[in-house]
């Protein structure tokens, strides 16, 4: 018989809300779509998370933060598992999360392009509105930026450089 009081799955989801992305502290791992499922195997809590970008160095940090959070809440019997079965997509981000990103100064991701249309878009560039002044007069500086998930843009209206969360 276990003397430790079991938490409900809903409670554990609440704990996970307190784990934020170390690179984008305005978003928690649920809003990011990183935390995928919470379940019990007997008395053991299983938390499944999925990586955003394959090479994202924040993933190790996030995994550790989830563990630390569970321990802090008195959960000792748990396993944090990396689940690759569903590929992470920015389409999982909620509208609320996208608004938070914009307020933080990062142009949020737009809807992803269907795979079969990709080759046709090789030479085109997409328009990303400036998160500061909402102008469409912006240009791409580089598809790669300070972290794996962001591109660099420049606003020709308010003359501010800004980052755009890539759509994947």
């Amino acid at each position, binding site marked *: 018989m276990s003397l430790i009081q079991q938490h409900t799955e809903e409670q554990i989801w609440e704990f996970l809300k307190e784990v934020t992305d170390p690179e984008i502290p305005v978003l928690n791992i649920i809003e990011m779509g990183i935390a995928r499922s919470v379940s019990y195997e007997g008395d053991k809590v299983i938390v499944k998370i999925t990586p955003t970008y394959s090479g994202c160095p924040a993933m190790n940090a996030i995994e550790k933060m989830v563990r630390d959070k569970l321990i802090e809440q008195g959960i000792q019997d748990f396993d944090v598992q990396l689940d690759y079965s569903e*590929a992470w997509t920015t389409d999982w981000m909620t509208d609320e999360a996208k608004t938070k990103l914009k307020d933080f100064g990062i142009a949020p991701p737009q809807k992803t392009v269907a795979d079969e249309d990709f080759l046709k878009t090789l030479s085109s560039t997409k328009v990303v509105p400036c998160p500061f002044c909402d102008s469409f007069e912006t240009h791409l500086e580089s*598809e790669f930026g300070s972290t794996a998930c962001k591109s660099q843009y420049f606003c020709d209206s308010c003359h501010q450089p800004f980052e755009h969360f890539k759509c994947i």
Partner: protein
Amino acid sequence: MTTTNKLTNQEAFLAYLLRLADDRLILGQRVSEWCGHGPELEEDLALANIALDLIGHATALYELAGVVEGKGNDEDHFAYFRDDADFSNLQLYELPNDDFAFTIARLFLFSSFGYFLYEELKGAKDPQFKGMVEKHLKELKYHLRHARNWVLRLGDGTDESHQRMQAAFDEIWMYLGELFYTDEIDTMVLADGNGADPTSFHSKWKTLVEETLTEATLTVPDWDQFMMTGSRNGMHTEYLGHMLATMQFLRRSHPEAVWK
């Protein structure tokens, strides 16, 4: 005994995963050598990001290989504790970076081939493998777009950049034959629902490559020239051993060290 050399589906899938992972690790390590040496800050960041993606792809594939193998080996084992003859990456990916044009030519050829390969592998039976392929494909599209843009810009650029871009493709061409090498491993994995038949996209890939080179005002080198062979069976150029020495020595000096 006739059964001793017969591969099981599990052994074939393991070998297949290691081929994919080795390609990505070795190319990722090469691309990472540009970190701090890029021609401009944005390009330095771009190449470092691409290297990180490739090493991330290798990590996930090695993890899965460890599960398939079932001996408790993790990604570090496959990356750091095997010798050059154990690696099954293509020679194409172990060649030194040479100049920026060569690095870009190789990245373009890798990512265009990878794009079509992953489009096929998206239908894989193994759910973890399928998920990885879908994920890696999303990232690889950025690599392809980036490398292709540079091929166009440098090929159709100054006399110097044009000449260097052409020289890069001329030099690399004899390493491309192996992209379409298949053997029993590919056949078995394909029959078991996790593989791809590269002949199914050979012409699509060739068209993309030829159209890009032509748009970049470059001459498409001769497809029928002598082509290198042997990579998938552990035959490598002299460059791989030197690269592994650099990549592996720290880990091998501290084999018991842990991260967490």
